[in-house]
């Protein structure tokens, strides 16, 4: 999911920017937002009969109808049960998801935290009536009504699953075992030339999180709400890190192969990659949640404000977070399920839920889920002096230049 597919995203968003320019004037919030008030979009009050189909935007691996392997298929049973045919559009990045949803041609989307607020602010998604989604009741409470999936106590989506950006290391090369992100941010690292980091502006949040825990004088309260000074501090940290980095990784394949080959010894990872490296057995690795905690992601099924098939969309949201299907998706994709009963339905790996900390709420308390940096600080302080995502992009270019 976090697989970067820049091309498609570029295409979708470039188109949007070029042609959506005409509607720039009616963007919500205006030019100098003083507080986050989403546009009024009515919430569905009751459900009717299915419309016969539903148009879905999702991450690769979330909506499987046997395209990868005949045995991996949870769409066909859904269609059989509800009569809703599923038309899937796989998105590569959050930017692409936003762009696709803005076309108004899709009914539902599996948005990550760095896209949800943009969709809500743009009036592209509607609040979700959780009473119409019976399986919402058994979703982990820790995922409900969070800053990235609700505004002012109104839920805008159904949680799908979550993961953390962990610290992975080659156990033979990295001794003693690291316990802190300091291992990747030490300018005099003994592992010079073997570090790695995620190649995306959102990685700045990892540096900000480290600074938040180790340099209280900077006053960082949330890794996604940085003032210009705080952003600068994170940028400096990342610039100092760069000479030690072997390569940044942006796609799954590269990180997996680089740990296998011994180019990478230490750096951020997703659990699913570490498991793949472990399965290959070429090198011994471990992935830990360092003492500072980590960044992470939690995806949300949202329903379009312009849905043509709202009944089927609600059916889909309810279906995909049902314990057995949620378990299937989570295991196939490699992430922690959102439904608290899903662990009872895991099939292949008996340790799956323990490996992915599905039930360990205290573990997740140290995970700072991705959010979109906006000028209107996302830490809930009501302040208005934060750097936005475009500034993060510029900063990331500066770091890499």
């Amino acid at each position, binding site marked *: 999911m976090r697989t970067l597919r820049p091309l*498609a995203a570029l295409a979708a968003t470039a188109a949007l920017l*070029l042609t959506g320019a005409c509607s720039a004037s009616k963007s919500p919030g205006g030019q100098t937002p003083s507080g986050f008030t989403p546009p009024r979009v009515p919430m569905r009050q009751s459900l009717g009969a299915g419309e016969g189909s539903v148009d879905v935007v999702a991450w*690769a691996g979330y909506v499987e109808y046997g395209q990868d392997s005949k045995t991996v298929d949870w769409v066909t049973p859904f269609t059989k049960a509800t009569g809703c045919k599923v038309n899937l559009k796989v998105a*590569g990045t959050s930017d692409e998801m936003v762009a696709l949803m803005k076309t108004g041609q899709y009914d539902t989307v599996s948005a990550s935290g760095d896209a949800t607020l943009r969709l809500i602010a743009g009036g592209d998604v509607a609040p979700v009536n959780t009473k119409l989604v019976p399986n919402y009741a058994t979703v982990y409470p820790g995922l409900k009504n969070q800053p990235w999936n609700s505004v002012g106590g109104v839920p805008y989506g159904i949680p799908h699953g979550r993961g953390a950006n962990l610290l992975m290391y080659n156990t033979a090369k990295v001794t003693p075992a690291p316990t802190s992100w300091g291992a990747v941010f030490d300018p005099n690292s003994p592992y010079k030339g073997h570090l790695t980091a995620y190649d995306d502006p959102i990685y700045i949040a990892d540096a900000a999180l480290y600074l938040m825990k180790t340099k209280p004088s900077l006053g960082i309260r949330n890794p996604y709400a940085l003032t210009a000074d705080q952003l600068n501090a994170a940028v400096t940290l990342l610039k100092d890190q760069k000479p030690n980095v072997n390569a940044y990784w942006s796609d799954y394949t590269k990180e997996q192969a680089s740990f296998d080959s011994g180019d990478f010894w230490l750096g951020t990872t997703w659990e*699913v990659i570490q498991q*793949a490296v472990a399965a*290959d057995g070429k090198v011994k690795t471990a992935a830990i949640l360092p003492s500072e905690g980590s960044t992470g992601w939690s995806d949300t099924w949202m329903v379009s404000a312009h849905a043509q098939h709202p009944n089927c969309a609600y059916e889909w949201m309810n279906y995909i977070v049902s314990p057995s299907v949620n378990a299937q998706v989570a295991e196939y994709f490699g992430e922690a399920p959102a439904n608290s009963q899903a662990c009872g339905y895991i099939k292949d790996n008996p340790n799956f839920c323990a490996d992915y900390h599905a039930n360990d709420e205290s573990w997740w308390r140290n995970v700072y889920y991705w959010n979109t940096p906006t000028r209107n600080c996302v830490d809930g302080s009501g302040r208005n002096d934060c750097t936005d995502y475009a500034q993060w992009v510029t900063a990331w270019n500066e770091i890499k230049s």
Partner: protein
Amino acid sequence: MHLNRRSRIALRLAMALGLAVLYVPLLVVLLNSFNASRSFAWPPTGFSLRWWQAAWQEPGLRTALWTSVRAGLGATAVALVLGTMAAFAATRYRFFGRQAVSFLLILPIALPGIVTGIALNAAFRTVLTPLGIGFGLFTVIVGHATFCIVVVFNNVSARLRRLPGSGEDASADLGAHTFQTFWYITLPAVRGALFAGALLAFALSFDEIVVTTFTAGPGTQTLPLWIFDNLARPNQGPVVDVVASALIVLSALPVWLAHRMSAP
């Protein structure tokens, strides 16, 4: 040219080195397609046919291949027509702005794909979408043809410049009209150049990623886009090596045939 022994040996070595540079990475691709591991890392952990099997069973791959072939054929056809017309204009006539025409033909292939891609994307949105034409195979063909015209143009004009006009004059003197002369005299003479240009145009289209991304609609997936997606998907790594290996082998035949036909 008379070369002494030493020069000949040096050149032969250079050729061998060049071919080695070209083929060692492809050999790596081929070996990795039999990799038992799920990643690219060298050396392979063991021998396995699982990726060949996976590629065979993947329906999306065949669809993508077919889409790429159709896009390549479409773009090549457009490029053949437009490139040949422009080549005749530029070689058989002298007119003001001839250089500007050449420049304009070269520009799409010389400018970065990302610039061409964004520009075309914007143009399609503003012009085609209101007409009810969405992004899809059609827009991909338009995008690819734009940068393929120049290779046909250059191949055909190179041939035309060396082609004496006497054959065409004779044909006209014998009473053939313009189209008959073109069909019976000129076309056979430039056939080789057309094949060479078409082959290169098809190859350019077949391997194009960036412009394709910007011009393809949601449901249109060409082979390079399929490869890109699979590199991003969990545990699909070496399956793209299978595709590449198969393509090199499969391409040898049409390439060889085309070279035969393009031989003067």
